[in-house]
C-alpha cells in the first residue's frame, strides 16, 4: 500500500498542505513543534479517524479555526482509494472515494497503517492495561466479531460486578452473568493467544535484527490456565470475588509478558531495549497485516531514533523491508551510505510548511 497524496486544512498547524511522499523511505525533518508529528497524525487520522495523541478532536483543529479537513489518496493493489474526513464544529463527516459513510467501521481497512510513536513506549513499560488495549485494538481491526465479543464481555462484567456489590450477593443472580462472561471471554482469550503466538516469532526476528542478536519473547499471561474452562475458573473464584466485590478472573485481568535479554522488559530493560521491543512488536504487526491483506501497510515512525544509539538506529532502517512505504520524522538526520542507497525522499517542515530538500 502506498500513500500518493496527503492534504490538510487547519489540521493542527498544517494548512493548505499537500504532501506527495515517494515509494519506500520518506524522511520528514524539522525542529520540534514545527508540525512533523502532525503529518503522521494526519495520515493516521485519514486512515482511522483517530489520533494517537488525543481522543479530543477539538485538539486537532488549528487555533482560531472551527473546521479542519484531512484527505489521503493511496494506491492499493492496482486501485486507488481516497478517504476524506472533515470536522466542523464538533461533527465529523467521512467520505470514501467521494461517498459519504455513516459509520467509522466503513472507513477502517480502506487504508492500513502501522504507527510507532513515543507514546508506544507504554506498550512495554506501562501497565498491563496498555498491553490489553493494544491486543484489543489490533484484534478488533482484524476481526469484527472480536469487537462484538469484547463489548458484550464488558457489559456482562459491569452487570456481574453490580451484583457483587449487593449486600448479600445471590449465586443465582451471578450464574447468568458468569455464563455470558465465559462465553465471550473464552473467545477473547482464544483469539488473543492465537494472535500472540503469531506475533511472537516475528517480533523476535525484528528485535534480533535491530539489537545485535539479543533475544525477545512475548507470551500471553493469564491467571486462568489454558486448559481450565473460564466458567470453572469463575466458579472457583466466586467466594473470593464476593469478598473482593470484583471479578478477578478473565481476559480483563490478563497481560502480555515481554522478555528481553532474559529479563522482564517492563522492570529491568533499559530505555533503548524497551523502545526496541515496542518497535519490534509494531514491525511484527506489519508482517501480520501483510499476511492478512497481501500488502504491507504504510509504516509511520515518529521520532523513532531518540533514545536509540546509532547502531540500533541504522539497523531499524535496514530491518524495514524495502517495499514498505515508510514515513519517518526526525530532528536530526544524517544521510549515511545505507540510507542514500535507499534513495529516501527528504522534506523539511518549518511552521507547518513543507519544503522538499
Amino acid at each position: 500500500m502506498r500513500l500518493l497524496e496527503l492534504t490538510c486544512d487547519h489540521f493542527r498547524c498544517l494548512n493548505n498542505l499537500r504532501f506527495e511522499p515517494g515509494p519506500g523511505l520518506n524522511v520528514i525533518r524539522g525542529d520540534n513543534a514545527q508540525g512533523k508529528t502532525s503529518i503522521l497524525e494526519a495520515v493516521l487520522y485519514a486512515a482511522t479517524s483517530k489520533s494517537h495523541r488525543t481522543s479530543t478532536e477539538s485538539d486537532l483543529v488549528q487555533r482560531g479555526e472551527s473546521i479542519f479537513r484531512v484527505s489521503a489518496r493511496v494506491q492499493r493493489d492496482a486501485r486507488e482509494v481516497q478517504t476524506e474526513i472533515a470536522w466542523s464544529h464538533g461533527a465529523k463527516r467521512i467520505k470514501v472515494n467521494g461517498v459519504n459513510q455513516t459509520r467509522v467501521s466503513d472507513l477502517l481497512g480502506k487504508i492500513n497503517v502501522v504507527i510507532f510513536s513515543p507514546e508506544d513506549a507504554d506498550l512495554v513499560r506501562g501497565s498491563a492495561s496498555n498491553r490489553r488495549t493494544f491486543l484489543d485494538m489490533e484484534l478488533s481491526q482484524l476481526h469484527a466479531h472480536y469487537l462484538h465479543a469484547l463489548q458484550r464481555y464488558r457489559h456482562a462484567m459491569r452487570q456481574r460486578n453490580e451484583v457483587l456489590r449487593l449486600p448479600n450477593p445471590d449465586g443465582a443472580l451471578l450464574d447468568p452473568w458468569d455464563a455470558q462472561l465465559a462465553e465471550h471471554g473464552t473467545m477473547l482469550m482464544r483469539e488473543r493467544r492465537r494472535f500472540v503466538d503469531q506475533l511472537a516469532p516475528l517480533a523476535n526476528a525484528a528485535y534480533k535484527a535491530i539489537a545485535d542478536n539479543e533475544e525477545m519473547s512475548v507470551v500471553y499471561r493469564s491467571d486462568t490456565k489454558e486448559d481450565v474452562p473460564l466458567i470453572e475458573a469463575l466458579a472457583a473464584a466466586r467466594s473470593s470475588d464476593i469478598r473482593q466485590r470484583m471479578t478477578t478472573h478473565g481476559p480483563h485481568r490478563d497481560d502480555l509478558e515481554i522478555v528481553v535479554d532474559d529479563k522482564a522488559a517492563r522492570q529491568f530493560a533499559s530505555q533503548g531495549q524497551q523502545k526496541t521491543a515496542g518497535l519490534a512488536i509494531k514491525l511484527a504487526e506489519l508482517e501480520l497485516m501483510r499476511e492478512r491483506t497481501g500488502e504491507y501497510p504504510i509504516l509511520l515512525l515518529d521520532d523513532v531514533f531518540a533514545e536509540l544509539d546509532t547502531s540500533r538506529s541504522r539497523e531499524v532502517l535496514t530491518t524495514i523491508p524495502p517495499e514498505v512505504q515508510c514515513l519517518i520524522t526526525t530532528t536530526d538526520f544524517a544521510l549515511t551510505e545505507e540510507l542514500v542507497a535507499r534513495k529516501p525522499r527528504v522534506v523539511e517542515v518549518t511552521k507547518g510548511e513543507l519544503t522538499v530538500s
Partner: protein
Amino acid sequence: MLFESPSVDRLVEAFRRLPGVGKRTAERYALHVLSAPAEEARLISDAVRNARECITTCSQCCTLTETNPCGVCANPARDHSIICVVERPSGMMAIERGGAYRGLYHVLNGALNPLEGIGPDELTVERLVRRIEAGDVNEIIVATNATAEGEATALYLSKRLAPLGVSVSRIAHGVPMGGGLELADGLTLSHALQGRTRLG
C-alpha cells in the same frame, strides 16, 4: 426551550418521558398540541386519562388488560398447560400477531438488570412460580429479548423453575440480535417458537 413558560417546559418534559422521544421531537409534539384547536389537545389528554383508568394488569399473566382476567387467560380454547414468558406486553402482542401460538403468557415487566437495580423482586417471577405451583402448567417457553439482560433472565428462570417439574425452553432467536420481540415480524416469531430449545 420554546418559550419562557414553565407550563410549556413541563409539557415538553412530559413528552420526553416517552420511549424514543428526544428533545427536538418533544418540542415538536408540544408545539403541535399548543397550536392545534383546543379540542385536539383535550382529545389527546382524555384518551390518555381514560385508557390509563380503564387498563389494569391481569391478575394471572400480568399483562395490561381492560378485563380481569385478560382475554387470553379467560379463553378456554387456549392451551392452559403452556406459558410463554415475555418481558413486556409488547412482546405478547408481537407473538399474538403471529397467530400460531395457542398457549398462555406471563409478562415479567422487564428483565434482570443489576445496573438499573432490577432484580427478581422487581419482576413478576414469584407470581409465575405460584402459577406453576397451582398445577396444570407443564411447559414454559422463555421468550425474553435477545439482549444480554434477556439472555441472563432466561438462564435465571431456567434454574429457578427447574425444581418445579416443568419443562423450560428458550425460543430460537430468529429475533434480531440485541432486539426486542416487537421488532420481529409475526412469521419469524412463529418459527422462533417452534424452534425452541430445552434449557438447563
